[in-house]
């Protein structure tokens, strides 16, 4: 009887593997023996960088699913790789996940097959960047904020506002901020300016920094043009920014906990803060390719990413926050409540998570400025226009 059952499930999984899956999986069969994942650098570690950080070996031993990783550097690369196909999973940020859903490259997830799904932070369980019309298209991985990093030898007190990088002023050490601040070299940074205006110019009526009408958008660009006069350089490579904090006299900049942790470990007098205007942030989701060859292994990974020490160790490794809040306190890995606080886990409500700006937004059909214009206009702003 058992043999028959195994035969039946194998046959089932075989048909699932060979034909495109349009409906979600009903039950998890035996693993297919392999799992290929498109991921950010540092997201899938098997101890190859630092033996202490390994959340793959256990999974492989327990499930027999051999994990292979294709690292991608940008959200667009991830979308391109998933469009090409040949991968089972992707760890997509909010500015990629909806594009994958809209393009039909990922399949709905049956969250009943992921027992630990209910352990996820309730605010993430149905987050709009992976749940469309009540259908789940992924399982939350980890998330992180874009914080304000500052040198403690310049700021004796943490700066309270993003104005230190947006407006000309003298910093507490008596010297002007011109040439000593940086901003993110990506069009999504326009959202940071919009967030700043939400707080300081309420008359503009900005509801979400990712949904801007023409007037609001123009105000944000004007603010960024002022910022251009203050910034010596824009950053997109974490390691170039690390070097600038060390060698360029950089005093304050939007940044990630990743850089702050590395610089602190290096003895640079640096700290980070959540200014009063709030911050933007990223939240990543594991998604399953519509033609995945190993859906069973993928579902086992979904459970693994939530229930094992992965959440804990990855958060320490990357300066991120677990999607399962218990990982901060239950000592399943290296994470401690102090690290969670430093990485911003208490400030979830202050974070406006990255999403792709589209023209048909909550303000109406075609009411918002779409992303491709953010790109070309931000190029203009950086060029001094």
């Amino acid at each position, binding site marked *: 009887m058992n043999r028959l059952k195994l035969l039946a499930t194998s046959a089932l999984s075989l048909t699932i593997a060979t034909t495109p899956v349009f409906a979600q999986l009903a039950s998890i069969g035996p693993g297919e023996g392999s799992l290929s994942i498109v991921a950010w650098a540092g997201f899938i570690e098997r101890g190859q960088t630092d033996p202490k950080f390994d959340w793959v070996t256990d999974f492989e031993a327990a499930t027999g699913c051999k994990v292979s990783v294709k690292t991608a550097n940008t959200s667009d690369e991830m979308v391109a790789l998933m469009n090409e196909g040949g991968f089972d999973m992707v760890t997509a940020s909010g500015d990629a996940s909806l594009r994958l859903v809209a393009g039909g490259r990922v399949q709905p997830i049956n969250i009943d097959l992921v027992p630990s799904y209910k352990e996820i932070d309730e605010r993430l369980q149905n987050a709009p960047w992976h749940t469309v019309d009540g259908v789940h298209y992924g399982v939350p991985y980890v998330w992180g904020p874009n914080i304000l990093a500052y040198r403690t030898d310049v700021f004796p007190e943490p700066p309270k506002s993003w104005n230190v990088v947006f407006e000309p002023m003298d910093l507490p050490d008596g010297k002007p901020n011109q040439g000593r601040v940086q901003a993110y070299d990506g069009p999504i940074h326009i959202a940071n300016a919009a967030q700043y205006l939400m707080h300081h110019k309420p008359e503009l009526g900005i509801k979400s920094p990712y949904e801007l009408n023409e007037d609001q958008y123009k105000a944000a660009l004007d603010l960024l043009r002022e910022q251009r006069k203050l910034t*010596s350089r824009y950053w997109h490579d974490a390691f170039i920014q690390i070097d600038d904090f060390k*060698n360029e006299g950089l005093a304050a900049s939007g940044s990630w906990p990743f850089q702050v942790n590395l610089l602190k470990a290096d003895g640079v007098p640096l700290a980070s803060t959540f200014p009063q205007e709030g911050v933007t942030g990223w939240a990543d989701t594991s998604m399953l390719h519509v033609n995945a060859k190993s859906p069973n292994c993928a579902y086992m990974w979904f459970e693994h990413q939530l229930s094992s020490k992965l959440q804990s160790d990855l958060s320490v490794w990357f300066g991120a926050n677990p999607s399962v809040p218990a990982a901060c306190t239950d000592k399943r890995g290296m994470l401690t409540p102090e690290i969670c606080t430093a990485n911003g886990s208490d400030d979830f409500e202050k974070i406006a998570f990255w999403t792709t700006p589209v023209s048909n937004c909550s303000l109406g059909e075609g009411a918002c400025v779409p992303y491709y214009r953010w790109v*070309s206009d931000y*190029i203009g702003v950086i060029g001094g226009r």
Partner: protein
Amino acid sequence: MSRAPAILPTRGAWDRLTGLFWRRPGVLLLLLIALPLLWLGVVYLGSLAALLLQSFYSIDEFSGMVKEEFTLSTYAELFRAQNVDIILRTLFMAAAVTLASAVIAFPIAYYAARHAQGAMKAVCYLGIMLPLWSSYLVKVYAWKLILAKEGILTWAAAGTGTSFVIDGILSVPGLSSSSLSTSPFGTWLVFVYVWLPYMILPMQAALERVPRSMIEASADLGANRGQTFRTVILPLALPGIIAGSIFTFSLTLGDYIIPQIIGNSANFIGMAVYKLQGTAGNIPLAAAFAVVPIIIMVIYLTIARKMGAFDAL
């Protein structure tokens, strides 16, 4: 006693093949160049054609999807102020880099070609080639550290009381910034450093080919050193100079790594292409941008030809 006939019977496929080649030399030629021709035609020109085609498409205003219909609107977009800025900025940088490379490279190439002997010649070759042996990225990152505000250059300037030189450069409008590493001046300096060997080598080759007899003849006819240089050496070395300038000019036009690491983040053509095709998914505009250096180089080569740079080829 048997006698071999004048024409031997064919002994197999190879003989027949040789016979075919002998009777029809064109077949052999075709066979030999088919592969390179295929490469040139399909891989090389084919991708260029695909690029050109893309640039005549446009991006849909609402969905951001590429519309596969013929239009010139993407090229019109190139003439927006911010895009003209990018093109002019790149053009100006390429010209400045080429000019500086030529001025610096000429004395080096002249010495290496006409004066260096024996071991010194080897030292010259090695010195010019050595920077090409290490990774381009390593060199650029090294320069970032050298030019940094708290880098060795600023430190040395402070120690020798010459900080006013750096401050002077950084106060020039257009170059102003907080340090050399974030100033367009730094970008220019690193470009010149990285591309210099590509200028020296063709120059040196051209100078080596200037026959000694002509210089002697020039002297016999009463020309002084300056006249010989202007009327004999320089015109004969011109093809080398132009060849070198084509390298430095086109390499600067297309580079997108150096301005990303050194400088004030203002975009160059290469960076714009990289961002537009990647982050924005605006492949038509990226393709249109990529056509700009091609047009610039065609104009450049035409002028070079008019100046007689290719006469010696």
